[in-house]
C-alpha cells in the first residue's frame, strides 16, 4: 500500500505519471428530473485499483453503466488509452480490453461453468460459421484453444474443480468466482468489478482483496463496493460519490480523513455499526 505522500507525488509528478488508461470526464446523467450523476470525473491509471464508494443511491452503478455503454451520458466524455470513445456499445468493450462483472452475476444458467467462462473467452475465437457447421478441424482447434483459456481463468479464480457443474448448483461465493473467471477470460486491460464483496464472508473478502491486488500486475481495476475494509486495503485511489457528485477523491488515507467523506459516508456507516453483511 502506498503512503499518501507517495501517492501525492505520483498524482502530480511529471516524471513517472502514467497517462490514464480509462477516464470519464464531466459525466452527467439525468433520469427525468433526477440527476443521477452530476459532473463526475474519474481516471483509472494502468496497474492501479481505483475504488468508487458512496452510500446507496449515490450513483455508483450508474457510473459503471455509463462506462459500459448501457447508459448514455447527457454530458461528459469517456476516453480509453487517451482517445475519446465516441459511440460506446457494450458488445465492443470486450474487444477493447474492458471486462465487467455484474452485481447480479449474470451467469448463464443453462451452461456449465467451463462453458460460461468460454463465452468470456469468445473474443479470441478465430473460426467462422461454416467451419462450425461442418465441424472442420479449424473449429475443433479453436474450441480447444478457447477451452484452454477458460481453464486458465478458472484455475486463477479457483473454480477449475467445478468445470462441469451448472452455476445454479453452486454456492453463491463460488458463483461469484465463476463470474470473475468469465471476466478474466476476456483478458482485459481494465476490469470493472461491481460489488465484488457483496454476499461474501469476512475471510473471503480478505482473500478477494489480495486477489484484486494480484491482478494489478497485468490490468487496472475499478471496483465499486460498500465494504470499507476491502476498499481501503485494496485500492490505490478512491473516488467518493454522494448524491451523484464526487465529494472526495484521492488516496485511501486522504479520503479517510476527508470531513466531507466522513459526513457523507463513513459517519453514516459508523452510525449503522456492523450492519453490513
Amino acid at each position, binding site marked *: 500500500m502506498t503512503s499518501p505522500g507517495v501517492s501525492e507525488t505520483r498524482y502530480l509528478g511529471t516524471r513517472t505519471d502514467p497517462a490514464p488508461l480509462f477516464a470519464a470526464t464531466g459525466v452527467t446523467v439525468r433520469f427525468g428530473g433526477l440527476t443521477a450523476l452530476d459532473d463526475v470525473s474519474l481516471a483509472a491509471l494502468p496497474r492501479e485499483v481505483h475504488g468508487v464508494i458512496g452510500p446507496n443511491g449515490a450513483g455508483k452503478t450508474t457510473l459503471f453503466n455509463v462506462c*459500459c455503454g*448501457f447508459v448514455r451520458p447527457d454530458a461528459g466524455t469517456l476516453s480509453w488509452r487517451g482517445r475519446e470513445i465516441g459511440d460506446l456499445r*457494450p*458488445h*465492443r*468493450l*470486450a*474487444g477493447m480490453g474492458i*471486462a*465487467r462483472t*455484474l452485481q447480479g452475476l*449474470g*451467469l*448463464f*444458467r*443453462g*451452461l*456449465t461453468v*467451463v*462453458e*460460461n467462462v*468460454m*463465452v*468470456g473467452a*469468445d*473474443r479470441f*475465437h478465430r*473460426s467462422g*460459421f461454416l467451419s*462450425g*457447421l*461442418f*465441424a*472442420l*478441424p479449424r*473449429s*475443433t482447434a*479453436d*474450441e480447444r484453444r*478457447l*477451452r484452454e483459456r477458460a*481453464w486458465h481463468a478458472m484455475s486463477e479464480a479457483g473454480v*477449475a*474443480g467445478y*468445470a*462441469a457443474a451448472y452455476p445454479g448448483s453452486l454456492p453463491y461465493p463460488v458463483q461469484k468466482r465463476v463470474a470473475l473467471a*468469465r471476466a478474466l477470460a*476476456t483478458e482485459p486491460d481494465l476490469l470493472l468489478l461491481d460489488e465484488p464483496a457483496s454476499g461474501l464472508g469476512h475471510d473471503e473478502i480478505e482473500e478477494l482483496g489480495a486477489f484484486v491486488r494480484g491482478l494489478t500486475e497485468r490490468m487496472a481495476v475499478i471496483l465499486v463496493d460498500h465494504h470499507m475494509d476491502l476498499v481501503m486495503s485494496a485500492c490505490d485511489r478512491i473516488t467518493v460519490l454522494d448524491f451523484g457528485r464526487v465529494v472526495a477523491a484521492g488516496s485511501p488515507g486522504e479520503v479517510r480523513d476527508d470531513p466531507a467523506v466522513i459526513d457523507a459516508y463513513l459517519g453514516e456507516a459508523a452510525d449503522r455499526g456492523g450492519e453490513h453483511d
Partner: protein
Amino acid sequence: MSAPTAAARRFLPSSVFGRNLLTVLVALVAVVLVLELTSPFRNSQLATMSYYAIAAVGLTVLTGLNGQISLGHGALMAVGAYTTGLLLENEAMPFPVAMLAAMVVTAVAGIVVGAAAARLHGPYLAGATLALAVGVPGIAIYFDGLLGGEQGLRISSPTPPDWFADAMYFLTAGEMTSARYLAYIGWGTLLLVVLLLANLIAGRYGRIWRAVRDDEIAAELAGVRLGRMRVLAFVVSAACAGLAGAVLAMVVRLAAPSGFTIVLSLALLTAVVVGGLGSLGGALLGSALLVFLPPAVTDIGTDLGMSGVQAAQLAPFVYGVVLVVVMLAAPGGVMGIVRRLRHAGRRARGRGGPSRPAAGKQGVGATDQGGRG
C-alpha cells in the same frame, strides 16, 4: 463414468465431427433397414415424419437454444414448398438443386423475419411470427396465377432413378417404390440436417446461442453481438424449415395454402416442447409422436368397438391429454425426463466414492442441452 462406458469411449472417435458422423451413419443403417422392412403405408408415414422432424430440429435450435419463439415456421415451410413446386415444374431441374434453392430462398426470408424478430421478446415475438403464419398462405391465394390459388401447386415428385433402384435392390433385395424413394429423400435430408445442427450445437454457436438466451447483458459484455446471433439462429432455423417444406412438397405432391395453416406451426412447436426444448433427439421424438400417435390411437379406438368417426375424434383428444400431462409432469419434455433419470443414476453411483474427476476434458457436446438423444 462406469468402466464399460469408459472402455467403449476409447473406440469412439475423439472429435466432435467424428462422433456425430458415426452416430448419423449408424442411424442411416437403421433407416435403410426400417424403410426396407416396412410397408409402403409405413414408408409414407415415415416420409411424413421426416419433414416434420426437419422443421422441428430447426425450430428446437431457435426456441430451445436461442430462446426465440416462432409461430411462423409453418409459413417458412410454405416458402420452401412453393419454391420447390415452381422449380420442379416440367422437371426443369434435378430435385436436389430445387431443394437447395428452396433452402436458400427460405433462409433469405429468415433473414428478413429474423432481423425484425431480433428486437422482439416473448409475446411480441409470438405475435409477429403468428402474423407470418396467418399472412403467408394468403400470398398464394392472391397470386393465384403463379401459385395456383386455393387449389395450390401440383408437384411432380421425383421418381427413383434406375441406378438407385438397382443399388438398393443389390443391397437389400427390396423393390424401390415411389413412397420408399421419397422416404429415403426425406430421411437422408433429415440425417444430414441433424449432423450439421449437432456440429453447430456442440461448438461455439450452440454455446453463444444459449448464452444469449440465458443472459443478454452478460453475453453482450463478453463481446457477443446479440442481434447478429439472434438473426443467425433464425436463419439456420428457417433454412431447415425451407428444406422441410421442399420434402413436404415432394411427399405430398402438392403445395396448397390449406397445408400451411397456423395448425402446422403449432404442431411443430408442440412436437418440440413435448420432446424437450433444445434437444435434437427430443425434436425427433416429438415429430414421431405427431405422426404415429393419432393413427395408433384411432386403431385402439376401433379395436375397442368405437365407430370410425368416434375413433378418429379420439386421436386429437389423446394428443391433447399427452400434451397437458407432459407439461404438468415434465416441463422439460421427454428428454428432460431422460436427463433427470441419467443424472439420478450418476449421483447414486457416485455416492460414497471420491469427488468426481475433473471434467475439463469433457466435450461441450456432452452437456445435456447440447447432446442428441
